[in-house]
């Protein structure tokens, strides 16, 4: 089907459990299937060990699964994030079995545009509002320039009590908001 976009309303953030989130980039089927499978493994861990799984362990389970299917043509680039005993954590996992720990990641075909915005404005002492604005801005710029990126911006905030959904804004509506901003900054 080539570059045919089947849907603009796919939810690209998967809620694995109230404390873990996974993002979706690459093949939608591979992402949603394997992240739901990860959710099942995390629940089994909880039942067997009477405590919540760490983000490091959850991301490792996913990475090991990807590793065992290496060569089968899976396509998945995801970020696993959550808050566990060691604090907030973020891991990047992809279909090669790569697993990286970091404070900041951008994944997908439009990731380079997002990195430009993120790297320019990221500081490690951002307030929650500043961070939300930065995330929204990064997504907007990526979807504006990359034809294969777009749809709804689902934004979540992860705290020690779990994740909270902040908003779900259509990126096309965001354009006019940022256009206004440009107008006012140009005139001043």
């Amino acid at each position, binding site marked *: 089907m080539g570059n045919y976009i089947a849907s603009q309303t796919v939810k690209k953030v998967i809620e694995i459990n109230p404390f873990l989130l996974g993002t979706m980039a690459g093949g939608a089927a591979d992402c949603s299937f394997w992240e739901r499978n990860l959710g099942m493994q995390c629940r089994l861990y909880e039942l067997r*060990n009477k405590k919540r799984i*760490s983000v*490091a*362990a959850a991301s*490792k*389970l996913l990475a*090991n699964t990807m590793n065992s299917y290496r060569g089968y043509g899976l396509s998945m680039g995801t970020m696993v994030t959550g808050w566990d*005993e060691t604090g907030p954590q973020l891991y990047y996992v992809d279909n090669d079995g790569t697993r990286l720990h970091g404070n900041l990641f951008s994944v997908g075909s439009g990731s380079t545009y997002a990195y430009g915005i993120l790297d320019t404005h990221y500081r490690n002492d951002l307030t929650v509002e500043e961070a939300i604005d930065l995330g929204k801005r990064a997504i907007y710029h990526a979807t504006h320039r990359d034809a294969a990126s777009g749809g709804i911006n689902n934004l979540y905030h992860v705290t020690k009590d779990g994740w909270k959904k902040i908003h779900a804004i259509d990126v096309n509506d965001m354009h006019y908001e940022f256009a206004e901003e440009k107008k006012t900054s140009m005139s001043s």
Partner: protein
Amino acid sequence: ERRALAKLQDPRTIRKIVAVDANAILAFAGLTADARVLVNKTRTEAQTYRLTVEDAPSMEYLARFIARTQQKYTQRGGVRPFGLSTLMAGFEDGAIGTKKKPVLYQTDPAGTHSSWKAQVIGGRNAKTLREFLEKNYEDNMTEEAVVKLIVKVLLEVVDSGAANMEVCVIRAGGRETMSEADVTKVVKVIEDEIEETQASAGAKKPAADA
């Protein structure tokens, strides 16, 4: 209890208390050869856990693994159960922000596992010795008091003293097998105490007669 070594035998090769993970030790009662196989499986499992979870396995996890393994061999064709019970000692995390607490787990050939404050396995006198432990165990004993109690228990079954005992202490920071010299010291303290109580009991008797 360690069986008396032949003069020509190297004592280092007959350890009955082994390390399973960085801070977990295991003692067993039963077939030594079966123990070697089970301990090796457990060591491998501990390392696999560290690789996939990026953290140390809890004592409870290891005890569950050993118990699960022992149970498997009771419900499969062509195999026989492992002929041993194990006692695993180590430290486990308490609630976040609290110190690690010591734990003791026991498994048996049926495949059950349970946690104990103090326990004795093996030999014909395990039941009597367990009662002895129950009488003398107190919560929050110091390390010295615990070692003394353990040596007292062993002295009930072992005749020749420190040469036939293997004592291993596990602390939050690591494990240490007591040297024979140190065990002999504890044995001496206990024997002196027994003599004292006997002497004072003897002294009382003549007074009662008079």
